[in-house]
């Protein structure tokens, strides 16, 4: 999958990319203001308080009988996130005015308290665990169109507010005394700035998780700080660097099959190091900086690998392809629902016992067999030749040795399902690795990893989504 495929509006996860781009464009502006006020730890503590609000609401709604994964529960969680954030912010502001001690220590204590409460609420409510874990990982991948719309509206309003009152917020952050003299009061501008922060954090956390929100608040302004030549360029650069991190972080996440939140944050940190390194080199030598920039561009170009070639059917010749039973490395049984037509067909043919439930592995291997047969390739299942061959190691040499021991010859196709999961709401996410091995010498003649994400929305059930994913894999496998 190329970089431009990921950016294409037709890409399945485009809404998620759009969501993280919106977050990445607006959060740095909020973070820049907090940074200028030396209140950046608010950006860490408030998302955690918001996450605590989400966990609390899940727990409460579970107790009230709201079923897991419904829109009502999501809406309640959003309210919980917002209420906890605004109350937490008010409480911290009150303590700032009336309590003794340093604000940093209060923020640290609030962070620890909110983290502990989040875990306790999750423990109280096992049904909410998956949702909260996704939240903490930063899974914007499952953003629905309605949520994207809400995110765009709230963040659009926050952005509009920050840009419209840029001068007032800036003056209030830089010199509160002058702000008091010129605008008649500095408290009102602090209040409105914190309200905008509160809304962006509360909504951002429910959509993308605290890690991503905090990461986008801190990292882009930090990188922009050393490049900026004035406040206007500082704020604009913060947003642009945020956007850069979001787009390339998203690409890396899809490409390397990593969770989005940690990937974006790690990439953001790498960007900061890169900025400081380039600055250091610029100070030493302008020529070296040019060389480094060229190397980075070339390196990035090289990293955008071409997709591996499809299976070369000509190379198979007249030899039989033995389809090894598909390995399941996911840790779950991957059984398909009981009304799957495969089962009915199998039962009619008398090949399947009534209590047998087909799996994704059966679906995948059966589909590959059918495709190869249609292309006039001789195909067989090893266990039909020798009942002992119920499984093969994925390591080519060992698999070929086992095949030779059972007097098989020709090709052995090994498949391993590394991931095949969905929480019922997010798209079905899959990763499958296949390799074609020469049985006589154990050499790998073709090796490919398939990553497919299939929406659940269009498919009524998991088996239909699985069938869609298999079709996608076959299309890539045979290049058609």
């Amino acid at each position, binding site marked *: 999958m190329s970089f431009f495929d990921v950016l294409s509006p037709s890409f399945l996860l485009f809404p998620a990319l759009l969501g993280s781009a919106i977050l990445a464009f607006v959060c740095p502006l909020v973070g820049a203001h907090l*940074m*200028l006020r*030396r209140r950046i730890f608010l950006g860490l503590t408030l998302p955690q308080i918001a996450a605590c609000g989400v966990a609390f609401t899940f727990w409460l709604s579970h107790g009230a009988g709201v079923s897991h994964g419904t829109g009502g529960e999501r809406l309640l969680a959003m309210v919980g996130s917002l209420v906890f954030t605004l109350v937490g912010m008010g409480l911290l502001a009150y303590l700032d005015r009336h309590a003794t001690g340093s604000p940093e220590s209060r923020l640290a204590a609030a962070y620890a308290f909110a983290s502990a409460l989040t875990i306790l609420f999750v423990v109280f409510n096992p049904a909410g665990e998956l949702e909260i874990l996704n939240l903490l990982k930063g899974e914007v991948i499952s953003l629905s169109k309605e949520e994207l719309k809400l995110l765009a509206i709230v963040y659009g309003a926050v952005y509009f507010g920050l840009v*419209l*009152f840029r*001068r*007032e917020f*800036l*003056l209030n952050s*830089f*010199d509160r*005394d*002058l702000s*008091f*003299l*010129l*605008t*008649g009061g500095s408290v009102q501008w602090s209040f409105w700035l914190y309200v905008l922060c509160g809304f962006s954090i509360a909504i951002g956390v429910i959509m993308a998780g605290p890690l991503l929100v905090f990461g986008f608040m801190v990292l882009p302004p930090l990188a922009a*700080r050393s490049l*900026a*030549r*004035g*406040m*206007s*360029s*500082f704020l604009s650069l913060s947003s642009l660097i945020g956007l850069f991190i979001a787009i390339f972080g998203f690409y890396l996440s899809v490409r390397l099959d990593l969770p989005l939140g940690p990937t974006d944050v790690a990439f953001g940190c790498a960007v900061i190091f890169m900025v400081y390194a380039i600055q250091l080199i610029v100070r030493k030598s302008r020529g070296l900086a040019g060389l480094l920039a060229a190397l980075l561009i070339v390196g990035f170009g090289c990293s955008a690998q071409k997709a591996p070639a499809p299976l070369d059917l000509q190379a198979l010749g007249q030899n039989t392809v033995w389809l090894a039973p598909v390995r399941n490395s996911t840790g779950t049984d991957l059984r398909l629902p009981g009304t799957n037509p495969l089962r009915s067909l199998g039962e009619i043919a008398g090949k399947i016992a009534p209590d047998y439930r087909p799996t994704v592995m059966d679906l995948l291997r059966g589909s590959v067999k059918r495709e190869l047969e249609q292309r006039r390739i001789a195909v067989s299942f090893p266990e039909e030749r020798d009942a002992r061959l119920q499984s093969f190691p994925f390591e080519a040499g060992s698999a070929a040795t086992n095949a030779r021991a059972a007097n098989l010859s020709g090709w052995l196709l090994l498949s391993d399902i590394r991931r095949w999961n969905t929480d019922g709401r997010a798209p079905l996410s899959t990763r499958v690795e296949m390799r074609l091995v020469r049985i006589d010498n154990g050499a790998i003649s073709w090796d490919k990893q398939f990553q497919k994400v299939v929406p659940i929305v269009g498919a009524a059930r998991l088996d239909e989504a699985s069938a869609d994913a298999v079709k996608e894999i076959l299309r890539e496998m045979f290049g058609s």
Partner: protein
Amino acid sequence: MGSTPPLVSLHRANLGYGDAAVLENVDLELHAGDLIAIAGPNGSGKTTLFRTILGFLPILNGTLTRHCALSEFGYVPQSTALDSTFPITAREVVEMGGYGRLKPYQGLPSDERNRLESVLQQVGLSHLARRLFFSLSGGQRQRMLIARALMVGPKILILDEPLAGCDPESQKAISDLLIDLSQQEGKAVFFSSHDLRMVRSVAKKILRADGGRVSWEEGVVAGHPW
């Protein structure tokens, strides 16, 4: 004192924080064209007096009368009181003085741009406008902050230790500027310093703050010691 009403007057005023008075029985009038300094050691209440006049602190006792709006005060804080992490240019700092006249959505109109250029020329630092504010020397920063206060279009200038941390050349430039603003433009200038010798060479009138009280000491604009 002049025949016109004073721009600011304090009568038997107690100033301080909470219930604790830092200065007691302060009597003071500021008129257009005044050049007054307040001198005293650290902690003697100079900044408390300024903050009360500017409305940042409430008066504890006595009366405080202002015959001009708060937006007509030009305030110059010590540049060390500002956060040096801001990547802000000198021009952006000076521009802030005009924010009170602009609507939120409004760009900087041409008359404000002209005023900006004019105040930068007045402090003699037009050529440094695009530099980062915190990359300037202490004296240059102080002059930029005076330019920002002039950008407000003030009737009164209040300067907190404007000469602290400046090299002799900057001290001379700043004190010349203060004398000009008072004598040529008729602005009331009220500044603080803990250096009594320097204060005597600049100010027409000197207030001495010590031991919780203020008292007047007459001075004249004499030859500068630099």
